[in-house]
């Protein structure tokens, strides 16, 4: 989204339709470096929703401004300021990564602009620091790992080897896995972010006697780890379970190396609701690649905003009314059940997912059994809202 073009377009629009009000949404996502694939999904998912709504949100013309946080906190901060101050955005949708969210959080919420996260769901803002202006349409970061742990427990894996990058999200996910898993954790290894060569870690897995491995190795790390794991021949002996490691942004590169690997999440492209099937088809027709959870959650964020703007009749000045409308979440989520908890994080169903090859040759995740229905995050109790 070219900001210059958008400004031109909006001024033309403004000239042409003088009295039409508009809803301005600013997006802060990562569009630099390899994680840009996730940011792109968020932008594309959101835009598809706008298209489906004929370019409107709640009946008003929608204007979307996309900013790149470059995975740098000071840039996220700067863009947040730009969106709420210069652009006077009514809503800010962002961010992909939790540390970017931390940087942008205060400028947006303190300017009384609603901040809706389509992906990052750190525990920081789920408990004591929950905020009336902050909503999440994805999940709380630990939840997927918690679900994976529950499945591991139910499926009877006795010894699990855990591996994650050495940063906060890595540790959160490892902790999340432990919540429901009661078997033995034979080892817990932290690798540097962006780690390239996993043969040492794979050797440890082989000699540890583990019957399953739980990994959180996002992005390029996942591409490398999965392929190296498969090449080592361990995939037949040790069940590979992961979160954010085998998803639609990494599967195009992983392909059959990830076959049969398990994951956990709130949705997969083959989720059987009408809205979801239509979404996946429309997304692939428009953008030419398979949407993952990031795109789905961004689509839902757009639908959420749409429902709220509609509920207040386009008048966004009464913040309490907008908040109440957002909380009500009166829209059909692509994933099925969806409601907000007191801390504005979602209450939703979680499933065990597995990697399979689709009929057209694309590698995707597919929904397996439902692990939790109406699952809440573990920090909501500390939120005083």
């Amino acid at each position, binding site marked *: 989204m070219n900001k210059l073009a958008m400004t031109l377009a909006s001024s033309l629009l403004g000239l042409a339709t003088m009295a039409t009000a508009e809803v301005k949404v600013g997006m802060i996502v990562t569009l630099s470096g390899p994680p840009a*694939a996730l940011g792109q999904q968020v932008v594309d998912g959101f835009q598809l929703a706008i298209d489906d709504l004929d370019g409107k949100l709640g009946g008003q013309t929608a204007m979307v401004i996309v900013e790149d946080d470059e995975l740098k906190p000071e840039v996220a901060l700067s863009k947040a300021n730009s969106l709420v101050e210069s652009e006077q955005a009514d809503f800010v949708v962002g961010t992909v990564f939790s540390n970017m969210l931390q940087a942008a959080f205060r400028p947006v919420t303190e300017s009384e602009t609603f901040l809706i996260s389509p992906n990052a769901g750190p525990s920081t803002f789920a408990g004591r620091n929950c905020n009336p202006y902050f909503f999440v349409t994805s999940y709380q970061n630990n939840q997927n790992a918690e679900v994976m742990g529950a499945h591991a427990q139910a499926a009877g894996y006795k010894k699990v080897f855990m591996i994650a990058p050495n940063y906060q999200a890595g540790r959160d996910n490892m902790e999340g896995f432990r919540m429901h898993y009661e078997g033995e954790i034979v080892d817990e290894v932290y690798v540097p972010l962006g780690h390239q060569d996993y043969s040492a870690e794979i050797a440890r897995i082989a000699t540890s006697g583990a019957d399953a491995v739980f990994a959180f190795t996002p992005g390029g790390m996942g591409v490398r780890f999965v392929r190296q794991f498969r090449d080592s021949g361990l995939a037949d002996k040790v069940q590979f379970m992961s979160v954010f490691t085998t998803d639609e942004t990494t599967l195009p590169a992983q392909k059959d190396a990830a076959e049969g690997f398990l994951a956990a999440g709130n949705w997969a492209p083959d989720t059987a609701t009408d809205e979801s099937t239509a979404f996946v088809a429309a997304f692939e027709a428009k953008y030419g690649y398979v949407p993952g959870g990031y795109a789905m959650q961004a689509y839902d964020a757009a639908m959420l905003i749409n429902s709220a703007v509609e509920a207040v009749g386009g008048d966004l000045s009464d913040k309490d009314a907008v908040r109440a409308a957002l909380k009500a979440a009166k829209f059909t989520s692509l994933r099925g059940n969806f409601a907000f908890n007191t801390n504005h994080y979602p209450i939703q169903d979680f499933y065990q997912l597995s990697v399979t090859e689709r009929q057209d040759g694309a590698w995707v995740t597919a929904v397996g059994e439902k692990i939790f229905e109406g699952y809440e995050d573990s920090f909501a109790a500390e939120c005083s809202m």
Partner: protein
Amino acid sequence: MSTTLILIQVLNGLQLGVILFLIAAGLTLVFGVMGFINLAHGVQYMVGAYLAYWGYGVTGSFVLALLMALPLALVMGLILEFLIFRHLYDRDHLSQVLATFGVILFLNQLAKVVFGPASLSVPPPAFLDFSFTLVDGLLYPAYRIAVIVAGLLVAFVLWLVITRTRIGMLIRAGATNPDMVSALGVNVRLLFMVVFGFGAMLAGFAGVMAAPIFSVEPGMGDNLLIVAFVVIIIGGAGSIRGAFVAALLVGLVDTLGRTLVTDGLRLVMDASAANQIGPAIASMLIYVLMALVLFWRPEGLFAARAAR
């Protein structure tokens, strides 16, 4: 701590070392002979990897992709040399830093624009697509062994060229005393171009070899560049032998260190503290190594020049 683990770590360390050597060799020659700090060497590595990806997409064969990528990487290096770098040989190091920094920004962004931001993969050649069984249930890919062998071969050929041929003699002379070489009537311009182009091709070769193991993404060369600089500092600027020894040393220390540090810490403190501090210390190891070498031998282990 099983012997299998140690064995695999040693193999991995050698493999990392070999790739580091391929990158550092070109870097140390360029720095030693031409006194030129080429920060863009890391993107030349990345260019090699992307050329392999593109070549594979076009031909469907890794070997053909390799054969296509090498001359193209050479050409790329020569273009950069001709357009930008040759104007900077006489300038101060910091102008070189500024210019090569600009090259990094541009090429990383270009890679993202042309190939997209996502991590891409290149499969290893079919004839190497098998594994050795090291221990029950654990396989070590033959391709990785091939990388080690290839790297050692290149090192050997380089050694032959440097020590046994005329051009190698000129390079060694240029690394020791470039002014004298020029005064003796050697076409230094041409020598520089050859050295630079060859270095770029080596980096590109490293990128092609690394592509099937690691993934191909924009910016993949940046962190390796820093480690390559550590290697040439430890080895001594301008010395291929130094780069070889230092690269293997760094590869082994980094790989073995990662395993040993966390495990070692677990002996003296509880697991969660070890898991927190261990990786941080492991990341610092190669820098500590470099600091120690600099303390003991400030010009590096095998310095080419007496004084600089």
